[in-house]
């Protein structure tokens, strides 16, 4: 059984920080853009920074759209980070007309207007009540976010002159607007719980 994490490397993400985050937990990581592997690997991370349009273009350029959707439909573990969360949604106010992956039935909006934008720094999270995301402080770097909770997901919230979604979870799919890989011990805990649950799922399938 493959015990490594597969990180989708579309060229628009802080790959090294994510890899180091898993390595600190003793979890091996592999990066790549193989559509077959993305569809079926035990545990896949969908990272992303930068603009929504550029992120989606990179997904489509690498032929990964169907793989990610299939993976979600089959309930295989996904950890989406920052722009990764946003790309899982239907679309974004940042790029009207660009179709997101649509596995989260919601659209990304601009963050609430505030004196300081984009949000670049630490914010406090109120937990979802799910097993993966807990309450604590995490590092964010975003100007856009979900502002209402999609049905069928457990939502964690943060607030910066208005509420926004800090994270979502549903089964073994976890989506973080923040960056767990650089959110200290709090973030490391999320990476560890998600990894553990992903490999537990694999054991069950093997039986």
């Amino acid at each position, binding site marked *: 059984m493959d015990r490594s994490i597969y990180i989708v490397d579309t060229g*628009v993400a802080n790959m090294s920080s994510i890899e180091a*985050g898993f390595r*600190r937990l003793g979890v091996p990581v592999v990066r790549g853009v193989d559509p077959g592997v993305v569809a079926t690997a035990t545990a896949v991370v969908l990272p992303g920074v930068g603009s929504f349009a550029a992120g989606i273009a990179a997904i489509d350029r690498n032929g990964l759209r169907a793989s990610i959707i299939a993976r979600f439909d089959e309930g295989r573990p996904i950890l989406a980070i920052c722009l990764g969360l946003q790309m899982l949604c239907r679309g974004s106010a940042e790029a009207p007309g660009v179709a997101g992956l649509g596995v989260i039935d919601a659209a990304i909006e601009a963050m609430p207007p505030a*004196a300081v934008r984009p949000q670049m720094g630490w914010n406090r999270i109120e937990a979802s009540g799910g097993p993966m995301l807990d309450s604590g402080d995490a590092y964010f770097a975003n100007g856009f976010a979900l502002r209402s909770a999609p049905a069928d997901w457990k939502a964690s919230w943060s607030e910066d002159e208005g509420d926004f979604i800090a994270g979502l979870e549903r089964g073994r799919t976890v989506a973080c607007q923040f960056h767990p890989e650089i959110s200290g011990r709090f973030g490391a805990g999320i990476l560890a719980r998600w990894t553990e649950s992903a490999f537990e799922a694999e054991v069950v399938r093997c039986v």
Partner: protein
Amino acid sequence: MRLNRIIPCLDLRDGRVVKGVRFEGLRDIGDPVEIAGRYSDAGADEIVVLDVSATSEGRSATPALVRRIREVVDVPVVVGGGIGDVETANRLLDAGADKVSVNTAAVMRPELIESLRDRFGRQCVVIAIDAIRRDRMGWELLVRSGRGRTGLDAIGWASRAVDLGAGEILLTSHDRDGTRSGYDLGLIRSITRAVSVPVVASGGAASWRDFAAAFASGATGALAAGVFHEGQVGIGDLKRSLLAAGKEIRTC
């Protein structure tokens, strides 16, 4: 709830952490990987690594060193010093930096800011501004680690840099750097009024009250070096003092 950031800075020369006063008289502090890991473990909210010798020697901070720091630091890492083009920035981001800080090259070629934003996104682009007070005339922008004058208004440059794509301003008071006489609060207020992006204050911190004053003046982060290196201020104690004073600070 937005939390204020405590940011230790490692000034590098020849792969070692050094510290001087007003960018001069550098002396050895220690190994950057060991120090970065120690600050991260102590609760630093971000680590800034600046190769202070890079621009004058025409080279940039080494990706190999950034890679080693990345392995031990689980909070954001900002790397600066001698970054003059997109490819150099890419090498540092690929080595594990979360953001790059650009100073002199952005002043010489402002279009570099747009190129960095287009390639990596605004959240990766920190513009470092070194400012020196002019008599009743605001602040002048300095380059080349404070050795080069520009004649430019620092506040005007901050606004322009944000328009071009800066996601954050790292604002150093040249007058206060290394002096432990407190941050230049007038400079912080002037810049934070002029731009919407986060501003990190730098230069002059001596006690927790200076950090509190920087936050009260509009900075969302406060950076220091000497007081941390010499143990005059411990990051844990600093955070406890700020919390006790009612400041919003990361506690876990």
